[in-house]
């Protein structure tokens, strides 16, 4: 897969992100099992926040930390938060 070329350039960064996302999925399903909509939402908020922090770290290490790049991550994280807020029952 071509996409793995990108991952191979910064394996540690992607390993950290992978672990974060897998933990997020496990925690989410734990709360889902308990029918806890509020905590399911919180998992998405925290994951989005951590994703944003990870992006700062990743691009700082890559030496291409630019406003337009961070804006891209911010909008994706914001969209995830908005969707969690509106789809996991109030």
């Amino acid at each position: 897969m071509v996409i793995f070329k990108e991952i191979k350039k910064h394996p540690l960064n992607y390993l950290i992100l992978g672990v974060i996302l897998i933990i997020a999925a496990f925690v989410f399903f734990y709360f889902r099992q308990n029918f806890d909509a509020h905590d399911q939402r919180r998992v998405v908020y925290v994951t989005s926040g951590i994703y944003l922090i990870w992006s700062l770290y990743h691009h700082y290490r890559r030496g291409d930390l630019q406003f337009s790049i961070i804006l891209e991550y911010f909008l994706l994280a914001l969209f995830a938060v908005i969707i969690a807020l509106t789809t996991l029952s109030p």
Partner: protein
Amino acid sequence: MAGFLSLLFIPQEKNNHRALLLRPSFLGIFIALYLLNQSIIQSLTVLKPGILGYSSEITAQKVLNQTNSERQKLGLPVLEYNDTLSQSAAAKANDMFSNNYWSHNSPAGKTPWDFFKSAGYKYSIAGENLAKDFYDTDGLIKAWMNSPTHRDNIINDKYQEIGIAVINGVLSGVKTTLVVQHFATPLNTQVAVKKQTTAPSPDVVTAPEPLISTQSLGTSAVTPSLISPLLISKIIGTIIFTLILGVLIIDSYITLKNNTPRLTGSSASHIGFLLIILMLLIFGRQGTIF
């Protein structure tokens, strides 16, 4: 037209090697469109209350059966259905609808115990479980059993009787089904409570009186098919996320294959993040207990 679509989806020289749909401006448009959809939904809930809501298959009979089934699994005696307790539970549900709140205590300061007393039930020990927005009884009972405080009520060996209300109405502009369980043990055997000797029919739980004429309060737990606002939001969110995900995959494939140097976010991380969020979006469960 085909050229514009190509610019939207395919990275090429004309779009500076980045599919237009992945640019921050287009991500902003997606968010704006989604928020517009949300405002339409919110407006509908205010202007035409009752159009949007949840359809539920929950019945009082099923709630009673499954509650007792959970007790029997632990070797506890079954709870006897009590009509007065059901009236108390129905009064609580109606009070939540009419005063638009979701809590054990009302904004006016009414506690669950006030409803027991108003219904004429004298108890030595009592408890209350609340739930809303659940689709089926299985999910509802599992949610209660997974919550230590609600579970304690269901399997409390000190309780002897139960009343259940499954009532449809409009709460915060959204049509929903409220389920109220009132557990109790009568103060003494002389208490004048109307006991039902046989199991209630699925639709026996009636509100003492409809408090809001426009609400379909009452006995039937099976509502007509309704459009769930959560489902609409989920479908639209899933479509947009899948679209972004698809374009990201195409974009990263082409640029990495061609070794195109560019200053953008990491497509691999975006794909991972969106996949997780998409999974959470699809598998998120509705229903709330209190």
